[in-house]
């Protein structure tokens, strides 16, 4: 049976996803609060998988919490921490518990996180993980053995439209489409002109693209991201716009920028939807949606 998120993708509507980050520890209060806040306002909620290689409560656990609350979850799955047996097993488990969507990622490098001496596994990569999801759906595991009960995930991947150089990134994007990626959630985009150019190219492929919207909560954060985060470019005009308001109004300005970006993408039919990442400020996602007129 198709997941609710897959139905939304296929309906042709402007799809909205957002994401929550599990806690470091077992206190789920904040996570639950964020799920309550988002579950009826977006088409699906991603749960990050040890984002930035920082050990946390697992993505699968967060997805089950969303499911229990009647929401729609997208399980983020990286190849950093599990070999192919463990990834396959977690896919089987997730599917058996009603998780119908998976985002296949390579995963950040171990040394950028908080367990710097851990072994980075990378037995599979994001592309091979997508293929694995398809193989499990065909009723076989990666060893070629028959499964008692297959999976039927809506599987997606990521792409970085601002990567430099862009060509190697696009080759991988095309390989992911061929591997059966039904949707893409992009790295944060701010330069609409460049993103529109990317979408002209991406539209020729049979997949859905949700533009990544990362909330700029301050001018400092915007400057940091553009200088340090791979694949993110924040135009100087946006940094200036944030710098131009008093400190206490910067978050509101960031919400306004995110809202108007989403509204422009929707109005001009640039892409198939958006993926909103508020990174620690999940409580303002409803305000971003309101600012976008959604």
């Amino acid at each position, binding site marked *: 049976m198709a997941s609710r998120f897959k139905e939304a993708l296929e309906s042709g509507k402007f799809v909205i996803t957002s994401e929550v980050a599990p806690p470091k520890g077992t206190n789920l209060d904040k996570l639950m609060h964020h799920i309550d806040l988002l579950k009826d306002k977006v088409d699906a909620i991603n749960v990050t998988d040890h984002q930035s290689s920082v050990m946390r409560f697992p993505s699968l656990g967060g997805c089950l919490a969303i499911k229990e609350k009647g929401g729609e979850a997208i399980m983020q799955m990286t190849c950093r921490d599990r070999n192919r047996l463990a990834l396959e097993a977690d896919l089987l488990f997730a599917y058996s518990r009603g998780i119908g969507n998976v985002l296949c990622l390579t*995963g950040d490098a171990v040394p950028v996180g908080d367990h710097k001496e851990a072994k*980075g596994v990378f037995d599979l990569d994001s592309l091979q993980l997508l293929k694995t999801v398809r193989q499990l759906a065909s009723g076989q595991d990666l060893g070629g053995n028959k499964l008692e009960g297959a999976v039927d995930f809506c599987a997606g991947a990521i792409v*970085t439209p601002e990567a430099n150089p862009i060509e190697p990134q696009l*080759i991988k994007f095309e390989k992911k489409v061929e591997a059966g990626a039904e949707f893409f959630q992009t790295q944060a985009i701010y330069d609409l002109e460049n993103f529109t150019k990317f979408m002209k190219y991406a539209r020729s492929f049979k997949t859905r693209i949700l533009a990544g919207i990362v909330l700029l909560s301050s001018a400092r954060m915007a400057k940091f991201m553009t200088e340090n985060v*791979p*694949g993110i470019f924040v135009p100087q005009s946006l940094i200036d716009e944030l710098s131009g308001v008093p400190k206490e109004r910067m978050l509101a300005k960031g919400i306004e920028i995110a809202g108007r970006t989403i509204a422009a993408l929707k109005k001009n039919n640039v892409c198939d939807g958006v993926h909103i990442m508020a990174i620690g400020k999940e409580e303002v996602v409803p305000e971003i949606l309101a600012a976008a007129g959604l």
Partner: protein
Amino acid sequence: MKSITRQKKMEEIQQGLKGLDRVFVIGCGTCTTMTKTGGIDQVEEMKGRLQQMGKSVTGGMVIPTACDDVTEASLKENEPYIRIADCILSMSCALGIHRMSLYLGKPVIPAVDTLFIGVEESPGYFREACAQCGQCLLGDTAGICPITACHKGLVNGPCGGTNNGKCEVDKEKDCAWTLIYNRLKAQGRLELMRQYQPPRNHHIALKPRAIRIQ
């Protein structure tokens, strides 16, 4: 091709020699001489430092190539001085330690860590070029090994951490897949990058790996 080593911190060497008061020091005339981690000068310097540490140094030598079978004869030549020692302190790479441990029954304590097998790309600059995976991909990747040169060992193209041709783990390190892309493009063979590379077989040769040449 060289076995690249780095000397351990003196505190760690001292810890390794705990309870072993009489020490015979052995360096190697090949790789550790080249990398200045276990040649004649370093062995002499180590002997001095061991004496400062209160150890009794029974002797020292540099074996021409510590990992080959001449090591047995070299040890025999110095047998009286090794016999009276509590241990050998090795300033050769791990391959040499393996060889030294076969004879005379003395414990061999490493003074250096073996980091990787490197090629000398420019004078004095050694770089790891091969991870000895047993399934050579270099024909598809323009002679740049992604298993070795990509931090994550990715075989299907760059990850999202690539930034202006550099790697997310270190801004000084090149992104392997940008290098591969550039070279394949120059060779007019970009279609190789478009092909799907299946998951690797991590047991091409079962560990511990060995081979007998007939």
